[in-house]
């Protein structure tokens, strides 16, 4: 079996006095979507932040594309091919939509063909091209946030609850965009509360609880097993049905 693109083994993270991640083992195979599920406070966002170097792992090892990245600095990880879409619609509100995307391209202007492709995924961004990102709606900000992560090809995209608080039509747009992105063989690690959204995209799944991964396997298997869903996801499943 080939080495996964991203792997965490026995990762612990402390934030201040709190012991948040308590030995996370996770493997994200290359070229597909892995969903990271679990109730609020299970440690999903902390896992993404730790991978991205925004919080430091206090123990354990993180490997990405064959390299140990446990102690790597955030900007180096971004340059090394990992993009991060935080859950808080992380646009730069004083900059225009265009400037937000140019900023993310880092080395000069973004590739025109790729930009065109992104704007077909999120047509709303074309309409507001020269508008300050701060005045966009929540859904448009989320689109810009995702667009910024993919403005250049990346090996791995960490996405934190992209559907949180969005209207159904925007969720559908987001789903179509991720499905299209998946076709390009980009690896996505998706944190999601919306099980149906996660189910329609993910190939593999990991479920977290209390700072650990308590289940990992094929998404199809979890989707077909009502009992397992109920046991692992409990209320968080019901609340989204």
């Amino acid at each position: 079996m080939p080495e996964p693109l991203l792997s965490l083994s026995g990762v612990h993270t402390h934030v201040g006095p709190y012991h948040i991640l308590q030995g996370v083992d996770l493997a994200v195979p290359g070229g597909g979507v892995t969903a990271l599920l679990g109730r609020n406070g299970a440690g999903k966002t902390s896992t993404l932040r730790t991978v991205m170097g925004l919080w430091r792992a206090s123990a354990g090892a993180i490997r990405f594309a064959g390299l140990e990245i446990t102690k790597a600095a955030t900007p180096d990880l971004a340059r090394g091919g990992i993009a991060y879409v935080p859950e808080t619609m992380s646009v730069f509100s004083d900059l225009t939509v265009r400037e937000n995307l140019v900023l993310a391209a880092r080395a000069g202007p973004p590739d025109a063909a790729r930009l065109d492709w992104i704007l077909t995924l999120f047509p709303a961004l074309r309409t507001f091209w020269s508008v300050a990102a701060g005045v966009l709606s929540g859904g448009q900000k989320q689109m810009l946030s995702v667009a910024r992560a993919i403005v250049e090809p990346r090996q791995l995209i960490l996405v934190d609850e992209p559907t949180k608080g969005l209207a159904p039509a925007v969720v559908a747009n987001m789903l179509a965009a991720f499905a299209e992105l998946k076709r390009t063989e980009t690896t996505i690690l998706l944190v999601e509360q919306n099980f149906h959204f996660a189910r329609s995209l993910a190939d593999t799944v990991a479920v977290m609880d209390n700072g650990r991964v308590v289940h990992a396997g094929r998404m199809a298997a979890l989707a077909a097993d009502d009992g397992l869903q109920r046991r692992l996801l409990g209320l968080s499943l019901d609340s989204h049905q």
Partner: protein
Amino acid sequence: MRFLRALLSDDLPRSRALSAILVAIFLGLLFAPFLFSGSQALNAAAKILYFVVLAASYDLLLGYTGIVSFAHTMFFGIGGYGAGLALYGWGPSWSSVAAGTAIALVLSVALATAIGLFSLRVQRIFFAMITLAVASVFAILASQLGWLTGGEDGRTYQVPPLLRPGFRLFEGEIGGVAINGRIVAYYLLLVTALVLFLAMLRVVNSPFGRVLQAIRENDFRAEAIGYRTVLYRSVANCVSAAVATVAGVMCAVWLRYTGPATTLSFDIMLDILLMVVIGGMGTLYGAVIGATLFLLAETYLQTLMGAISRATEGIPLLPALFHPDRWLLWLGILFIGSVYFFPAGIVGRLGRDR
């Protein structure tokens, strides 16, 4: 129009009112020696020139990068002392000005780099405190090293002959004004201020400037898309320090005097802060308007109040209220009013009402 756009780095003022005010300020400064008579007016105009540069360079830090520094007058002072002491020690020649400026720039950038690398990693409030400490040490040094700096009295010196009042550029007058060395010095300041301002406008509208704005808004996000924020902050700190240093040189050349009160005092630091806040943070045009308004108020409020006081003679209470001695009270009221009515600064307000 295309030329103007290129000159202003595609960052045109966002409203007609704002453009009109800026054009008025520019024309006023451009023709100041011919429009207003007397040395007080020319001194005020020259002071506006170097304070526009100083306030704009501070805005680069505060408004564009979100760094609060109290060491800005230190860099201004380094420029002032650099040029001033060189002119004092090595004689009134252009090479003294050049050497003094060069030494001051090297010292400023080195200090800014050291402060930046040591302390831009820490939380912003600690950075502010560290700059305050370094600036205080520098001010004490300037006053203690009397043999070099002249202590509290400062140094008075001659400037190159071209810039002296006795110099005549040519015989005869333009619009009734003899073109002497003071006017040459004024235009030297004007050109320097213009070039520096346009250069700063270019910096903030470059990709580098966009990264600074991104860092100001959220440094974690900027890191997450691959920018080393400490590096960018340090470079911004150095650029801002270098420009403030040149503003100090402008001040030293204009005043023909350098001392703690004109360059290093904490009052100046507060003035710069007020200029930037009143004008509007994060827009260099705000620094122009803030500095102009502030210095005009500081220079002419007393005269204006004297006039009002005389005009209202006979009406109870009013003459006393507008007595020139109360000018500081009115200056304070003006500032409170401007912050209350223009919380985003004057430019922020005008830009919105387009």
